[in-house]
Every structure is written in structure tokens, then in C-alpha cells.
């Protein structure tokens, strides 16, 4: 069953260039989808359209069978959590615990429940020691962790991560990615937005955006084998992937392989 269905969606900011044009895609319930695209390809715009922060010029968005419009927007927002790109501009609370609580307060969770969940999710993102801290005393990555905890705690059916781990160190990113996998297994529909293919390969399916259009959409393995599309997407390919493509072309003599490896490592 499709939990998100988008048909022929177009949108432009004040200027005449379309940030998104004729986007059609769907996300199945319980699935983990990556939206992959270069800077300015319209990924964040798409996520803002899905939760009704921007209004589409044309096209239709359906979430859980309900068409997004002015009446349904609040109900739809209760089903979707989104971690935005800039951690500084989404920190609402005066302290870390206030910020994690904010979404739950809006969803009218019981006070005792809120207190438990703050503990639980602060633990999950390793921010337990910082609960009373104010945002200006936190690093970018720490703020990003708080934002993630705040959204996870809301227990929404769908969670969108818009480059939510961009400021985390490799270890932090890995632990968050593992946790995303875990909640996805537990039934939460996950959409991760990224321009990093390393993150995208973890998901079930990949949707590639380029200049506001969907240029590819399919199972992760199929997309990775689609050399032409990937090459045209302006994305940085993964090293093993590059290697694979080059080896496919080359006659596999030992010297050639060495040559290719050298070239790749120098380019990197």
C-alpha cells in the first residue's frame, strides 16, 4: 500500500524557474526510500510540499489515502515528522529537553509520557548529559541530534530526514543510521534526503532528482547498476561503483587494473 502518492507535482518559488516540475512518485508503507540529488535539485522543496509548508502550483499529494489540502494539512502533519537541514533554525525550546518536548506537547502527549520519552530519546542520540543545556552552548552536530530526538519522540508513521546527519561525525552518523534501520524494521516509513550515495545505498529504494525532475526511481540495486542515469545525475559516485564501471569497460589485464586503481585514488 502506498502511504505517500505524488502525482504531477510542480512548484516554483517567486521566480519563473521551476524548483520542481511534474514530479510523480510513491512511497510504500514501511519502506525506506532515499531521495538523492545534487545541491538545488529540489529535495528540500519536495519535503516541504509533502507536509504542506509550501503550496504546489499544480499536482496532487496523497498521504495515507488523504489528499493534502487546507483542511487535511493538520491531520497529515501529525503523521509525518521531518528533521530539517539546518539544525539551528529548528531549535524551538529554550533548552534541549524543552526542544525534544515541543513536538510531543503539540501532539498532547501526557506529561509523564513526555518526561519518559525525553529520557529515552536523548539516550538514543547520546545527548542525555545535555538535557538542561541551551542551544547556543551546543555544536552543530549536537543540535542535529536534538532535532532527531525531538522528531523520533513524536512517534509519527512517516519520518523524513533532510540531510539530518550532515554535521555528525562518522561514528555518530553510523549510530543514527543504524537506529533509522531499526525504527524502519519496526514499521516506520522512512525517507532520507541526501546527496551522499553512501547513505542512499542503505535504503530499499532510491529516487534521483535532477534540476527538479525525477530522473530515476527504483530498487537500490537496479539504480546502482544504471550507469547512464547515475553518470548524468551530477552526483559523486561511490568509489567501488566507479571501480566497477571502469573495470567493466577495461580488458582485465593486471596492469590495467593497477592503472585504474591509481587513477581513482589520485582523483579522490
Amino acid at each position, binding site marked *: 500500500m502506498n502511504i505517500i502518492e505524488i502525482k504531477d507535482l510542480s512548484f516554483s518559488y517567486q521566480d519563473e524557474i521551476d524548483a520542481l516540475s511534474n514530479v510523480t512518485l510513491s512511497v510504500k508503507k514501511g519502506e525506506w526510500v532515499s531521495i538523492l540529488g545534487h545541491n538545488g535539485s529540489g529535495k528540500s522543496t519536495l519535503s516541504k510540499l509533502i507536509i504542506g509548508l509550501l503550496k504546489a502550483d499544480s499536482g496532487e499529494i496523497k498521504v495515507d489515502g488523504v489528499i493534502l489540502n487546507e483542511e487535511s494539512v493538520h491531520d497529515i502533519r501529525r503523521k509525518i515528522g521531518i528533521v530539517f537541514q539546518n539544525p539551528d*533554525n529548528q531549535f*524551538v525550546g*529554550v533548552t534541549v529537553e524543552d526542544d525534544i518536548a515541543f513536538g510531543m*506537547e503539540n501532539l498532547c502527549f501526557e506529561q509523564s509520557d513526555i518526561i519518559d520519552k525525553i529520557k529515552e530519546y536523548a539516550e538514543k542520540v547520546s545527548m542525555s548529559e545535555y538535557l538542561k543545556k541551551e542551544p547556543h552552548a551546543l555544536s552543530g552536530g549536537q543540535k542535529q541530534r536534538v532535532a532527531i530526538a525531538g522528531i523520533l519522540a513524536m512517534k509519527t508513521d512517516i519520518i523524513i530526514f533532510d540531510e539530518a546527519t550532515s554535521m555528525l561525525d562518522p561514528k555518530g552518523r553510523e549510530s543514527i543510521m543504524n537506529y533509522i534501520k531499526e525504527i524502519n524494521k519496526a514499521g516506520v516509513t522512512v525517507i532520507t534526503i541526501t546527496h551522499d550515495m553512501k547513505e542512499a545505498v542503505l535504503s530499499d529504494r532510491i529516487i534521483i532528482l535532477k534540476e527538479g525532475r525525477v530522473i530515476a526511481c527504483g530498487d537500490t540495486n537496479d539504480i546502482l547498476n544504471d550507469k547512464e542515469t547515475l553518470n548524468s545525475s551530477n552526483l559523486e559516485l561511490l568509489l567501488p561503483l566507479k571501480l566497477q564501471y571502469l573495470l567493466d569497460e577495461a580488458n582485465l589485464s593486471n596492469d590495467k587494473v593497477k592503472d585504474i586503481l591509481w587513477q581513482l585514488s589520485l582523483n579522490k
Partner: protein
Amino acid sequence: MKNIIIGQYLPGTSFLYKMDPRSKIIALMILMISTFILKDVTHILIMLGVVLLILKIGGIPIARIARGLKPIMILLLFTFTFQIIFIKTGTLIFDAELTLTVFTLPLMIFIILFWYLTRRYIKFKFLYLLITAFGILTMLALYTPGSVLSSSTLEVYGDGLSGAFFIMVRLIIIVTLSTILTLTTKPTDLNLGLEKILKPLSIIRINAEEIAMIISIALRYIPTLLDEANKIMLAQASRGVDFTEGKLKDKVMQIISLLVPMFIISFKRSDDLANAMEARSFVPGKRRTRLHTLSWHNLDTTVIVFCIFIFISAITVRVMF
């Protein structure tokens, strides 16, 4: 500057910290009104005693209160002088002939200049100012050689002195009371308390919850914006803008070069923030549960009863005497 969120908050454990912010605000109001009702020096001194008692039991160091009084020192001095000079009733306590002569005028200017140049090296600036002023007055009263430029009499009357004293004590009480509130209550709690107290205003369509939300977001963003201003100033400085000197025209240009980017950043921020709030299902005016709630204990009732007792006493003494 970054302490703005913590404010003046002084961590502690006394009864003042255990009270609900609502009862603290209400108690403060009652005590302030009581102070304004009093019209007699003796009564206001008793009130001062009560306030000192609160400080003592509440474990707040007097030094902290004195620091809170600093900004109003000038105001205190001004009202004091004003009262003494203009109230001319009651018994004459003291009078002196003040004469300005060709010798004392340059001497006076010299003393003021000396004070002006040396005051930055003196620790107790206010005391230093008082001593200097007193020194000038004494000189004018006692030292009168040379031809007289002008002269006047300084008369201090009983009512003037007691009036000045009365007003000073009253001001000190008011400031001390509000300092107690801000020293023992975190701004977030204060905000929450105000929100609950202002709740009845919803009848006249003032949404206290929204006001409180705006205040808390302002509290949260002030340090961030200060940081930003700092960054911009550094960035401009590295491009050759000098924020420390220049003519008035340059200064204005410097301020503009700071304000324009600040405005643009703030607008972008507030836009993003509104998005983030809405995305987390915030709907203005809609019911939401709260992480922090307030709870009213027996202590709060006791304190309020005590304050009401003081209030009634204040009215009684005002009517009786």
C-alpha cells in the same frame, strides 16, 4: 551578554526557590502595593525590616541585592537631592551660605576635572562621586576669599530630609523585591508563571500562551543573534570596516552594515523556525500539553496569606495614623 537566558538567576534551595512562580509574582505585587500604601517613615522602615527578613530567611546575600541597586543609584541620588532642595516645610535643621567666588570657581572646575580623570581607577565609583560632591559643597560653604560671583543659601528642613529618606527606602524596597523574584526564578519559570497569571485575559482576546511562546523564543534566539552580530562584525572588520572609530557618518554606515545582514538573517531564521514549528504540529491557539507545569503547595498559600496580612496591616496603619 549570553547570560540573558539564565538572567540573574542565583541557584539556591531556600523557600523562595520552592515557591511556585505564580505565587511569587502575586506576593511581589501585594508587597509592592502595600509599600505604596504606607505614608510614614516608621512604617516604611518596618516594611524594610520585613524585606530584610525575607532576604535573611531566603538566604540571599545582601551584596547581590546591592548589585541590583547599582543601576538606580543615580535615580536615588537625584530624588534625594530634589526632595531636600524643594521641600521647605517642617523644622529648619541645617542652613549654609554657599558662595561662589573668583577663586572657588576655578578650584571647583579643577576638582571636577580631577574626579573625571581619576574615577576610572577608583573601585567604589559611587562613593567617590558622593565624596567629591560633598567636598565641593563644603568648600563652597566655608572658603570665601575674593570677589563674590554668586551666592545662595542651602537650607535643609525636617520634612525634606524625612521625605527624601522615605522615598529612598521605598525605592530600595521595590527594587529589592523585584530583584528577589529574578534572583530566585529562572526566566523560563517566570515566563510560565506570567502565562498562567495572564490567562484570564483571554476574555478580552489576549492570548497569554502565545505571548509566553514569543517571549521564550526571543529568549532562545537572543544569544544566537548576538553570536551572529559578532560574526558579521568580524567579517566586516576583516574587509576593513573599523567599528571602533570614525566620524558620525562613518559610524552610521557601520551600523547599517551590521543591521542589514542582521535583518536578512533574522527574517530567514524566523521563516525557517515557523516552518519547523508548524511541521511539528504546532497550531497557534490550539491546546497543548506541557513538559513543565506548575504546582501550588501549602508553602505558596502560607506566603500569600502572610502577604495579605501585611497588605491589610498597611491599609490599617494608613487609615489609623
